[in-house]
């Protein structure tokens, strides 16, 4: 039997005055997956998410969460979902234990604060005031608060923004852990690597529209970009010589060092040709690696611009 689809969004529209922030966004989120809304700042990700969780009233479209119409039954939907907002702060002097108890008290199926404290590694700071927590600890607490009602589906808005790399990795592990426990996760991010590493499926949003969706592998596979062989040699190489190699479509210098980036239709052939060329010239190969098309490439192909941080 096919599990029910926890989130179905159709033709969602949200306007702020004359500005149409969300322009007919549609997507489905499958049970037990991590679904990412990827896009630059201002693309409409947060507006979309806030409409879905009931923080904003959409101007059009339909939203179903856990089988309920979120627009007509917002209170019932709130009981079933969990959320971590992008800019949530708690009172300076509240402790994680108190915050978890307070938020849990509004649900009939609340998870014990002690359980959440252990699960989100907050034992050391369970009774410390909020203003003494580090950025990563605050984010872990925000995530724990999203799970006080053991929700079927949890929404995370830019969960790792502003965190250092270590905290970011820790949070990624936690998110994967909750997925493994059977929760469905919907997150927004503008980090391509994060989307690639974490998400089972992604919807790329730009200018308020979904411009592509699928698993990271599917999206990359759909890319028209060619794989690249990147090389660096001890002595200078001529562009004309590299561009003349049989499978190479384009040769361009890399930005960071004296290397070259060769777009190729055949990785194996180009690798062999480069090695033989350097051998003939008596040149030393210092570095060689292969770059396959990435989500960044997909984004550039679709939008004509890079994903900005």
């Amino acid at each position, binding site marked *: 039997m096919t599990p029910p689809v926890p989130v179905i969004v159709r033709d969602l529209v949200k306007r702020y005055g004359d500005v149409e922030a969300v322009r007919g966004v549609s997507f489905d989120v499958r049970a037990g997956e991590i679904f990412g809304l990827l896009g630059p700042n201002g693309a409409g990700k947060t507006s979309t998410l806030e409409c879905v*969780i*009931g*923080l904003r009233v959409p101007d059009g479209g339909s939203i179903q969460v856990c089988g309920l119409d979120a627009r007509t039954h917002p*209170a019932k939907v*709130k*009981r079933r979902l969990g*959320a971590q*907002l992008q*800019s*949530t*702060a*708690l*009172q300076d*002097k*509240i402790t994680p234990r*108190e915050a978890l*108890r*307070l*938020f849990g*008290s*509004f*649900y009939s199926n609340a998870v014990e604060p002690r359980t959440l404290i252990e699960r989100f590694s907050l034992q050391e700071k369970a009774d410390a*005031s909020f203003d003494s927590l580090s950025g990563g600890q605050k984010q872990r607490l925000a995530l724990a*608060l999203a799970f006080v009602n053991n929700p079927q589906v949890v929404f995370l808005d830019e969960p790792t923004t502003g965190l250092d790399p270590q905290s970011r990795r820790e949070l990624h592990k936690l998110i994967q852990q909750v997925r493994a426990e059977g929760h469905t996760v919907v997150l927004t991010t503008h980090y391509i690597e994060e989307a690639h590493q974490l998400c089972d499926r992604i919807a790329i949003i730009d200018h308020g529209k979904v411009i592509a969706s699928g698993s990271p592998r599917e999206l990359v596979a759909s890319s028209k970009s060619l794989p690249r062989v990147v090389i660096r040699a001890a002595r200078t190489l001529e562009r004309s010589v590299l561009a003349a190699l049989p499978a190479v479509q384009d040769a361009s210098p890399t930005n960071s060092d004296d290397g070259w980036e060769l777009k190729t239709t055949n990785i194996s052939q180009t690798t062999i040709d480069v090695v033989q060329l350097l051998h003939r010239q008596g040149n030393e190969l210092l570095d060689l690696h292969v770059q396959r098309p990435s989500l960044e490439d997909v984004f550039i192909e679709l939008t004509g611009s890079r994903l900005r941080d």
Partner: protein
Amino acid sequence: MSGLIQHLLITLRLNFRSKQALVYGYIVPVFFLLAFGSIFRQLSQEFGQVLVISTLGGACFGMPTSMVSERERGVWRRYRLLPASTGTLIFSTMVARFLIIASAALMQVGLAMWWYHMKPPEHPWQLAIAFLFVCFAFLGMGLVIAMLAETVPAVQALGQSVFLPMIIIGGVGVPFYILPHWARHVADFLPGRYAVDALQSCIDGKGLRAVGPSLLALTLIGAAGCAAGAKLFRWDVGQKLASAARGWALLALLPWAAVGIAATVQGKIAAAGAANPIIEAIVTRSKPAATQAAQTQPVAATAPSTHPAIASATTEPSTHPTVASSTTVPATSPALPADWRSVTEAQIASISYDDLEPDQSAVTPVSPNLDNLTDEAKKRMDTLATNLADWKGTLEDDPVQKVRNLLAVAGVPDVMQDPNEGEIPLIVFDRLKTTVPRDDLIKCLTYVALKPDEGTYPTGMAELGFDVTLPQEQVRERAVVYGKKLLGRLLGKLPVKHVDQ
């Protein structure tokens, strides 16, 4: 329900963890208590004002500051994701604030009784109910402020625009009966005046049954504030108030206008008939305990005390030297005189002066002389002396009533805290000594001291430059004390703490 209680508890806990909240919630009310205690002395007569100031501070600054600060941080935005109604969270916030304000008020009552020997409230349970009404009204106002203010500094600005008028001309800081007439009309439109009325009635008056209109006014003001606050409610700092929504703020002010108009109309009708009902209410409430006791306790029935201090200082002297205690009827004196002419030597000798406030104190002061006055003040005293000679109160035929009238001329500036309140009694004493024969004056003053509730005292004397209408009992109380001070001077019986003999 569990969520409501948890939110209430955490709000209380966080309040007690905030140094700023503790200072504003508990230290500032103590400061106001000390200020009132040092200015008024008869604290029980002004204690309603002390409570209203604290309540205003907690409701119109404390609660909105906390709410706006949390909204700015995004706390309320996060609350919005909870399966709880707006009303639930507002209710628990208001109840928590009520408990904080109530705890500060209890602390003030305790401190006032301990430090200033204030009498316990006459109707403590009714006071609690009146306090509930006052908090409801002010918390409703605080909710509107919280919704209108975009930032914490804006709370201060809006709060002060409500707080200051009530303190200065709303009968909250400056007693209502001292206010000039125009200010009383303004005060009728401000909630503080009704709050003081309701609380004061339960502290030293007839209790709730005397303040039905004030309770109604507070209910209307609170209900409109809560309704407008709920309609204007903003979860998120990004939510801007629509111009249409601002109409709700005006709705919150409608009851202010309605009760003000009602009070004005009622006052005019009453003025056309007899006494002003507001003044009447205050008079009834502020009657000194000793005076009330004198009315209900026949002197002959009072057993002589075996305690030497009590025996010498007459009946039940207060442990705190208050004005009221100095008007007490002597316990060991013979029966009260039928009229001033029948005052006996024994009755004259029975008057005690030990419990009089020193002449240098804030209450019933008497300057040593008129030497250190500015030219302007000297001129004023000369004018007063001249006007006093022809004043209708001086021309009264009945000697004892003449004495009362002139003593009132000393009492009124004292209640008003006139800049020359210490010098004016000297002018009055001179006038009394020159217009009433000494023996008659001694008998009249003794009679006034023994029967403080008899006769009337002028409460307004615009022709002498005192353009106010004060409560009869306030003037009576001060006038009787001045009578004793003059009597002591005439008999050479004043204790050494009194400078001028």
